[in-house]
């Protein structure tokens, strides 16, 4: 609470209260409540199958009632037109049908009552989790998503580290500013549009193949076989690295920037080659930035929807797409919540693993 009294002293009661209240509201409304609701969702389910069955039965029942009515009407007309001795047989039949009808109506009443109950009934249990862990296809998609996200993170790191180092330590000030501007400007364009731009680049008759056809490597006009397209797993990975590059470059840049240039020079002066400088001096210093960059890139990649949707060409499936199917197509919010929770748990585990591997604490990351 000493921090609170510090704040009070510096900024006064009004400012401090505003800050504390705003933070609490933010945390509660934007983080705690949604997560808590989602968590409870995973523990109950509706038995849609049962409801559907009841609905069908009721439907069939009414159809059957209509059939009975038709039959009765028919019998009535035949009875009135029939001779006396035939009449009793028909009347017996009519009575039977009326009895059946009544029975059916009673049954329908019960069914409808049950339907109304089941329509809004929720069952508490672990059925959602059981479903999740038993579905082999979804399991495969889940692990594929993890693996691909790790790959994206690793490739982004390998690509962005030299760029960040160049900007932070090698480039003169104006050039560094220009390159950073060049990195930021694409982000002024909506993410979806940029992803679709990649679709245009990677598709069979897209920009990449157009360029290749200029060198004669690819025939863009051939119909059989058609020119190759680069959508699919590879396309998704490239698209993700492109989309999230800033989230890797900037944490790296910020942390490398704080490294005293003299240390690099001292290392060089003592005889270290360039790789020795990076391995022993720059990277240890940059660990918090690397951790932050990896965490953000991984979370964005694992949770990405637009990129796999646009660039997988129908070939691969991403975990987020399954969640979308549950929530928007099948309308099963509970399964959707369960899958989403799994994704969240995955990300938290990844963050903790990163923090342990790079030996950084939360404060380092916050900086």
């Amino acid at each position, binding site marked *: 609470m000493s921090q609170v009294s510090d704040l009070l002293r510096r900024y006064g009661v009004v400012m401090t209260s505003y800050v504390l209240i705003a933070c609490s509201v933010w945390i509660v409304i934007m983080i705690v409540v949604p997560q808590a609701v989602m968590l409870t969702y995973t523990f109950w389910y509706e038995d849609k199958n049962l409801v559907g069955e009841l609905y069908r039965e009721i439907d069939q029942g009414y159809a059957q009632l209509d059939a009975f009515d038709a039959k009765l009407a028919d019998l009535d007309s035949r009875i009135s037109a029939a001779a006396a001795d035939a009449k009793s047989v028909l009347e017996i039949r009519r009575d039977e049908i009326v009895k059946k009808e009544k029975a059916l109506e009673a049954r329908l009443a019960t069914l409808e009552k049950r339907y109304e109950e089941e329509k809004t009934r929720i069952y508490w249990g672990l059925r959602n989790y059981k479903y999740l862990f038993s579905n082999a296809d979804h399991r495969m998609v889940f692990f594929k998503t993890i693996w691909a996200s790790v790959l994206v993170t690793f490739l982004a790191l390998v690509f962005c580290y030299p760029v960040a180092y160049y900007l932070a330590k090698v480039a003169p000030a104006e050039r560094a500013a220009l390159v950073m501007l060049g990195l930021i400007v694409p982000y002024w364009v909506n993410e979806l549009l940029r992803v679709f731009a990649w679709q245009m680049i990677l598709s069979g008759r897209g920009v990449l193949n157009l360029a290749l056809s200029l060198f004669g490597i690819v025939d863009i006009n051939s119909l059989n076989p058609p020119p190759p397209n680069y959508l699919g797993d590879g396309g998704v990975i490239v698209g993700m690295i492109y989309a999230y590059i800033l989230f890797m470059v900037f944490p790296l840049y910020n942390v490398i920037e704080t490294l*005293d240039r*003299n*240390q690099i*020079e*001292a*290392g*060089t*002066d*003592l*005889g*270290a*080659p360039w790789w*020795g400088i990076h391995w*022993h*001096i720059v990277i*240890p*210093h940059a660990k918090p930035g690397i951790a932050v960059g990896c965490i953000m890139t991984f979370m964005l990649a694992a949770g990405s929807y637009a990129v796999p949707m646009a660039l997988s060409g129908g070939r691969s499936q991403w975990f987020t797409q399954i969640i979308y199917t549950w929530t928007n197509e099948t309308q099963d919010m509970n399964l959707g919540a369960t899958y989403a929770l799994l994704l969240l748990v995955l990300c938290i585990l990844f963050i903790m693993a990163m923090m342990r591997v790079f030996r950084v604490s939360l404060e380092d990351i916050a900086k």
Partner: protein
Amino acid sequence: MGMDVDLDAVTMRFDEFVAVRNATLTVNSGEFFSFLGPSGCGKTTILRMVSGFIDPSEGSIRIGGIDMRGIGPNKRPTALIFQNLALFPLMKVWENISFGLRFRGADAAARRKRADELLDLIELPDQGDKLVSELSGGQRQRVAIARALAVEPEVLLLDEPLSALDLKLRQHMRAELRAIQRRTGVTFIYITHDQGEALTMSDRVAVMSQGMIEHIDDSEVIYNRPSTAFVATFVGENNPFYGRVVETLADGHAVVDTELGRIRGVNATRRVVGDNVIVFVRPERCKIVENADFDNVMETTVDRLDFEGAFVNLFLRGQRGKDIIVHMTNDGRALEFQPGMPVKVGFSVDNATILPEAELAAD
């Protein structure tokens, strides 16, 4: 024994700005050599050129007779000690010291052993496993020196290493550095703006101003026989008297008519009658006298007195209105002087240096 370092007509230009102009000198093998000058005089640039971080625009640098052009800092037989030390904060002390040995094929055990040897040399035994942040300023200083010595350089380059230390520590470290240099025989090139450091530690000193080397010599000659007005005023305190030569004498002396009066001084740079000159007289070479037993005697009045503990600075005004400062030890008589008292100031011919008129060192 360390190597010699040879600068031949070395010039360094940064776009329009000339940082070092036509520097030619030789640092002898095993010498403690200092570059002395104010900020911006080019001494840091020279150090960076010798260590290999920049190549001179013109001229050549040879170490041990080998031309160093195109050879990077990690390949030169030099080691640099930075002004802010640049120790590696994430490594332990022994890892810092043995860092350079990693790239010479030494395994961990050999490196640890060498680090321990050097820790003994710098008198910090058993401190190897600490982090740099746990050491004091003086201890860190010594670790930086050990780190540089670990790679067995022929030439050790020191960039104002003592400027961040307090007075007592600085004085202690001066003796330490000198002792280490004597013990290892490595050629030391030391840059500083503190002339006390340069004079006490060095075999020879090069005084620099605005990219030019003004004077290279032993400490004693630099101080007693400065060759330019800048050197005369940058190194130590000096009384400058502007004037014109009125007579030259056969024994290498000359008479100058100055703002203080007529002074007879040593004419080492062979000025002729009519030349504009400055006559420099060291404050500690002036004596308060009763009679005219000295070559030069001036009538003055006491203006004020600065009492600085062990010594006293006496400000006297001459008959032509020019001040002369006399530096005296606090032998008990100093406080007898009251403002307004008439006193006679005397100094010998040898203590009056005649130099061409030129820019003085800024205060």
